């Protein structure tokens, strides 16, 4: 892998011109935002709006963004933007249906202007973000595992996830319990390494390889 030689995704986003970097960013985080908005109880159609607003305000805020690790983790920053967008959206909807658009974008962008707020708090919204963020990374890692692992092992693992017992699977796949245990362990270790790597890249803003 050569992530370290990749220009930082964030640096690329900063100049505001790098279309590809932006697409990369969107494809990486769109789903996370979407799930978070859903978890916050928004309707699917509203979720789309929220994600769009969040991404647009991020695209503004990340221009000229200087990373200062001492001020907090990038994921917390993203979480604040997500939470603020949803809050602002709900507030705006409650006030009036349509002052949204620019006014709302501005309010979210202001959050972005002060990006590394560590005053994340422990609100329900943050817990939800934390959980969706974790799921996001699990799913990302799982999708890599599905692509790279022996299909049979992946199948066994999926069966385990859907609640099948080891004994059941041993019979079905004509394997020893030991072997199934190994699959379990192997995939967990792999997931762990992948997640470590993903989080590392997220925190250092490296582009995916």
């Amino acid at each position: 892998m050569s992530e370290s030689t990749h220009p930082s995704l964030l640096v690329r986003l900063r100049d505001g011109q790098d279309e590809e970097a932006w697409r990369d960013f969107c494809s990486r985080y769109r789903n996370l935002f979407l799930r978070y908005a859903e978890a916050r109880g928004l309707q699917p159609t509203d979720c789309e709006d929220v994600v769009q607003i969040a991404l647009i305000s991020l695209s503004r805020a990340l221009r000229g963004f200087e990373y200062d690790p001492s001020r907090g983790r990038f994921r917390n920053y993203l979480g604040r933007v997500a939470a603020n967008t949803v809050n602002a959206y709900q507030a705006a909807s409650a006030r009036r249906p349509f002052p949204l658009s620019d006014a709302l974008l501005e309010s979210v962008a202001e959050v972005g202007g002060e990006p590394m707020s560590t005053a994340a708090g422990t609100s329900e919204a943050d817990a939800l973000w934390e959980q969706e963020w974790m799921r996001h990374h699990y799913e990302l890692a799982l999708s890599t595992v599905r692509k790279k692992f022996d299909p049979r092992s992946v199948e066994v693992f999926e069966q385990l996830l859907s609640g099948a017992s080891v004994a059941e699977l041993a019979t079905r796949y004509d394997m020893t319990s030991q072997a199934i245990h190994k699959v379990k362990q192997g995939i967990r270790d792999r997931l762990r390494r992948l997640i470590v790597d993903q989080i590392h890249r997220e925190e250092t803003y490296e582009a995916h390889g």
Partner: protein
Amino acid sequence: MAEPLDLSYEDEQLFGLHLALDDWVGHLRSQLEGPRENRFLGEYQIVKEVGRGSQGVVYRAIQPGTQREVALKFVSGGHQAGESSHRRLAREVEIAATLDHPYVVTVHGFETIGEHSILVMEWVDGRSLDQWIREEHPSTQTRIELFLQLADGLHHAHSHGVLHRDLKPSNVLVDRSGRPRIVDFGLALLEDCDTRLTRSTELGFVGTLAYASPEQLEESSPLDARSDQYSLAVLLFELLADRRPFQDIQGLAALARATSESRAPLLSAVMTNERASRLPGGFRDLSLIIAKALERSPASRYSSVSAFAEDVERWRRGFAVLARRPRTTYLLSKWAQRNRLLAGTLLLFVGFLISFAAVITVQNSRVEQQRQEALAGWSAESTARQRALDAQREAEEARTAALALAESERESRRLAEELREIAVASEAAAVASEGRARSEAAAADEMVEILLEIFLAARPSDRSPGSMTVGEVLDAASARIDTNFANDPLANVRLTITMARVQGWLGRTKIARDLSERAVSQCLEIADAPVAVVAQARREFARQLFNLGDYQLSATQLELAESLLSGRESTALERIAQWTLESKQALFQGELKRAEALLLESLELARALDPPSSRVERLIRSDLGFVVVLLGRFADAETWYRSALDVEPAEGENGSAAFAGVMAGLANALVRQGKLTEPEELLTRALSIQEARFGKEHPKLAPTLASLAQLKIRLDDPAAAGPLIQRVVSITRTFSSSDQAALVNAIGLQANFERSRGNLEVAWELYEEGFHKAREHFGQAHVTTLGLALNTGLVLLELEETEESLDLFEEYTPIAREALGLRHPIVAGMIANLGGVRSRVGRFDEALAVLNEAMTKLGRFPSSEDMFVGLLGMRAEVHWEQGDRSKARADALEVRRRLKSCSDPAAGWWPHARDSADRVFEFLEEESLR
């Protein structure tokens, strides 16, 4: 990777990686699939999380006691639950529990378990509407059926004072059997509540934007059932067009502006052709229905969802719909669709126009230009082709001009020589006075000087304004001939003949024909005109007539010239020539019967000619075919054309252009009778003969191409018709002259084409333009004008311009009847229309009167039985619309009885009559089922 990394303690915990392997699998599973499965919530066992909505998470669960499957709509504790949510749910239950309808999800109750508020509903094993559409790709029919069911459910709620307020695809569940259920009356408030206050102060706006009505978005007025109607219309729009009316608008404020300030696009404007083509009976009316339900002002929408649904149902069954332009009081367009009789008649008649023209030449007018532009849009391919043609044409024009000038110069020299010869001959013969001989010599000299002078003034390479074109040179010369040789008729004749020939070379055929015709008549005025000169004039006339495709007149002129030279008795031929000329004039004046009579007399004479002239005879037969087609007697026309082909060809005549003309005529007569197999080959053969003789872009190809295009339209093959029409237009444009008849033909053909493709507005404009031009040029009683009047009226009807259509038919039916007689298909078509339109505006007695009167008379002619039965079918429908079922049934039965004994049920009006009868029986059966 730069350095070995590991997770922080917090992340290890978060990801559950600190857990023992087996526990970790459980942790991962719960994280990925939701945390609550197989847990209990009060007495309910959670099976699965199935969705999250604005009201909270939804679970599928089992009620252990009854083993009943239920859906639990769950407001999770913490950030979401609050006083307002709880109160909202309580109200939802209160209202929704009153609803009991197959298309509304049943609500069992409302429970509070711990800190959770839970709504217990019927579990529907299905998918949300959007998912169902994506996965099942249901047919258009199914989608419309589903819409009607939703409308039914929604109307039920409305009639119980319940508004949905948030209708959208995710709030519609479709079960395995395809039955839809509306869920989530969660936003519903009792209508008599103070809706405005509650909505703005307590709940805020929670409807889903894309489906929200303008009044919801603006909060401008209290909501009522018409707001749900709007949402339902958006849903129907999306079901049919696979997109929402305002979907391209990004952002919420923009959407609010769009829905409040602009009209939703018409469904017909955004639907893909593919889907549109699968809609029964076109989708224009449906577009109007949806547009009405999508009106910005609730007052302009339907009074209720059920009225909306009923109109869709009416549309589906082919009836007039209520949604229509405001200025008309009663919508009735559907009639034309149900009454295929009319449509069939319509196409039949425009085809008439096509064979009309011996000549197809069209003015290069602005109108034509616009039409050309419209045509250019057909396809990129045809555009490219058009460009190529344009370029080619320009090149050819330049070349022709250059050649013509060179040719003219040669001709002028020849002319000078000829004139000298005349002078010398005159002098030498000294037949008349010396003065005349001298004058001819002087004339020759003078003419040569004139021409040289003019030719020197013209520079073919100089195209700057003010320079003379070759045509202008010749026009000037012609004018000078008339003034300079007024006292010398013979010289005048000879010069005129020469001018005619030169004009002919230039492709200015009509001018050439006029000049040569004048030469002939001048000859006849000169008492002692030399036979050779007269024969030359007739030959020239014959040549120009031939070039114009007027084979028959041409043939007689040629025969006359030959008989002059051979000293043969020519009285009979002279008379034929005279009569055929008169018949042509009668034809253009719309006096079809006189034209026919003259031709029949000419034929008598031609058959008695000694020696016989097969050329003359065949061409008279062919012209008879042509006139008889216009008289609406297609089978007779077929006989005439076939007899023309049977006439033994003269030497070198087989495969000639004249033959091709007869074949094209025969094809036409066959198409009119609905015999669609033979014509294609005939037309293809005719076309290849003509192409070999004239090239691919000659005006004489236009009628054949037009017939072929017409055939393709009849065969429902617009893809093949398009390029053919393009060729016709290109040709008519290229050979610009001012032939109104040809212009009208081209317009009628295009109108037919556009109509066959469903472009009614375009077709209407074309028909009307053709109609006005025809009226101007031929008069209002001419068959062409009347055919176009019928078409214009029919398209108006299809466009729902009923009053205008009615006015037109009221005005033109008597005119047509007077001019063409009752048995003419145009007339019968007009009568059928008049009856139908009167019926549709509720004037049933008048409708029946016009039909009955016509039927009484038509009934006396066994050969017009198909038309009679066609009107009978129409009468059955009028009876039905009037509500007189027994008479409707009697007429429809009579139609069926006569159909059994007719010889060819596919010919003439029989199919239309059968359709009428079928429809009436269908209606009657439907009614008896209810």
